[in-house]
């Protein structure tokens, strides 16, 4: 199971949990599995079938360019962060 860290501004949606252990082979499945238990979770992160453009997904500290398609190894950590680039 992967550990999904819940951003503080979304913790009220998941009974105050700051992280959840979730089944799923990719980011899409993780989000949908959380959304089954906590409806509304998916809508915060996903728009038009993709991760919202101002959000980045990190697996074990590495930002993934694959968004919802990113495979998630067992025991990995998943974070949702502001999407940023640089100058």
């Amino acid at each position, binding site marked *: 199971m992967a550990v999904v860290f819940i951003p503080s501004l979304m913790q009220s949606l998941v009974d105050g949990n*700051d992280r959840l252990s979730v089944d799923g082979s990719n980011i899409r499945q993780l989000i949908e599995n959380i959304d089954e238990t906590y409806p509304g979770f998916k809508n915060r992160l996903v728009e038009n079938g993709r991760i919202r453009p*101002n959000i980045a997904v990190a697996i074990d*500290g*590495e930002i*993934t360019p694959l968004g919802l398609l990113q495979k998630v190894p067992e025991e990995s950590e998943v974070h949702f962060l*502001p999407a940023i680039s640089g*100058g």
Partner: protein
Amino acid sequence: MTTADYERNKVLSSSDEHYRVVGTRPVRHDGADKVTGRALYGADFDAAGLLHGKILRSPHAHAKIISIDTSRAEKLEGVKAVVTAIDFPKSDKMVVGTGDEATTLEWLRDNIMASTKVLYKGHALAGVAAVNPHIAEQAVELIEVDYDVLPPVLTTQEAMAEGASLLHDSLTTEELGHDTGKVSNVAEHIQHVKGDIDKGFEEAVEIFEREFNTKTVHQGYIEPHNGTALWGPDGRLHVWCSTQGAFVVRDSLADLLGIPISKVRVIPMEIGGGFGGKIPVYVEPVAALLSKKTGSPVKIVMSRKDTFEGSGPTPGSNLKIKIGVTKDGTITAAKAWMAMEAGAYPGSPVGAAAMCVFAAYDIENALIDGYDVVVNKPKTQAYRAPGAPNAAFGTEQVMDEIAEKLGIDPIELRLKNVAKEGTRRVDGPVFKRIGCKEVLEAMRDHPHYQTPAPENQGRGIAIGFWFNIALDSACNIAVNSDGTINLTEGSTDIGGSRTSIAMQAAEVLGIPVEDVSPSVVDTDTIGFTAVTGGSRTTYATGWAAYKAAEDVKKQIIARVADVIWGIDAANIKMEDGLITSKTDSELKMTFKEFASQMGDTGGGISGQASVKPEEGIGGSFCGNIVDLKVDPETGKTSISRFTCVQDAGKAIHPDYVEGQMQGGSVQGIGWALNEEYFMSEDGTMDNSSLLDYRMPTALDLPMIDTVIVEVPNPGHPFGVRGVGEANIVPPLAAIANAISAATGNRMTDMPMNSGSIMASDS
């Protein structure tokens, strides 16, 4: 010990790897053209029938547009076309990428040409194309605009106040995908929490808290924005421009003009600086529409005033930093509240600031709140580690106060709390291999720090972080029959990257870098390549060159195995430019010998790679030591010595890494001591010229000494970490700390110019 008594510009390496090309300092491929004036920049572009474009800009910081009458301009002899916002096609597309952020198409279009409101002085309203620039300027003056002037808000404090004048009537505050429904000038609230902040402060023996303010500053690239567009009768749009991202220009033009990307070709010219400010489009869409109307190529070149008032400076900000420590200086809790100016439309770098503000430290309990705030100034844009210098200005000064109060050496205080591999950041992820500790140790051990500060001078230090990015890059390599290679890639060369990319290919193939002919090519000629920015180019495009060279190598080995020697490819190796058999020592040939036989053995060899690295990006830490004196009569600050220490992973070309470190340091110094948008109450920038917006030159500063600390990035074939940005992060705070040491006054507002230093003393 003077600066002459020790080795300057050192490279401290912890790696055992030895390379033939990587790590050397060859002459850059574009050097001769650049120093002789032969290099072609956007303003140099010429074409038959070229028309010249000028843009009408708003004199008001905030106003409704009641009407625009272009008739008198259109009648002026020599004027060929006029465009306004109504010439942009309508589109249903909601969100577009602009190379470094996402925004709505409506906002992107409105920033390029205002439709219903002007939101900053300098906001573009109309464009004119004429036979020469003088007639175009005359015509712009003939356009009549009726405004309903509104009160502007110019700082985050003004914009966030109850009852503040609103820039956008329907802008509501978003919190990570949740629309709060609250209409205000606050576009977004972000937050990161780690541990228990209240418990952390309860455990603290001493708590330090300060509020800081920074002003709007410009990236100060020496070459203004420019673009020439030719919309041909076949419907294809060709654009020659100064840009950090030719593909960003292509995609933005396609979105704004409602045409497929296949109809747009962007040719990036040489670029005279960008630093993040040349990622979005400004004049290109206007030139394109004027070209469409006239059937002629149209060139628009911004003036310096237009560049200040009509492009994208970096935000001013208001920050509150609070840190609690135990008696021995261990941080128990840290809190940051940051509000950043987005300018006229949402999208300040407050997200990045939030990720960097405490990144150098291992903190158990922390809370970070960030607010993206619209104000009546130009839409802000990235400037070299955007957001991070503002954040470090606060954090590093509070750390300095802690060190002073507790009687701890400031570097030792930072080492006590340093982030390292395995530290969990406040925003969540765990650091992999990083070089923060190594940078601090190199600072501590440097002759500069080991020598006492000169009499009547103050010394300050600071450390900063930038996380770097990867994104897409592509590279093609063609082998020539004389044993040289042509390398094409799509990353605009801002800091010598074409050579550092060529060096990585040369290393793989074992050939001299002088045998590589690198070119930066247009969007029709190379695979998708993201911006030259985010400290990604040497890392990601270098990786594409590495893989393209590996592709060439594989094909060469297969050709030699199948056709030339008739042996198993597994028994062939290619190293240091020599192809040999592992089983027969008589069989060998050089790269050049192989290349001369290509035509007779199956034809030319080309290699290709497109990459989007998924892991191993690696952030960079940078630290500064600065000595300065403050004239007690005038408040003038003179820097006598400045040392920049940065973790570069592996310096492919140390000269260019040192150049980035020196350049970032100088920009940070200017930002700290003098640069600001000096705004009058009506929202006018009063100092929109390089005479009055005073950036430091070589005459103002001592030699910036550099130390490259090589902690190789395990995520890159040569260990590269991006280096272009982290070096602008610490100078602001290092200088503030040095001024504090010199004067006894803590400077919480920037710029720390003579006037503000004298005021702090009174």
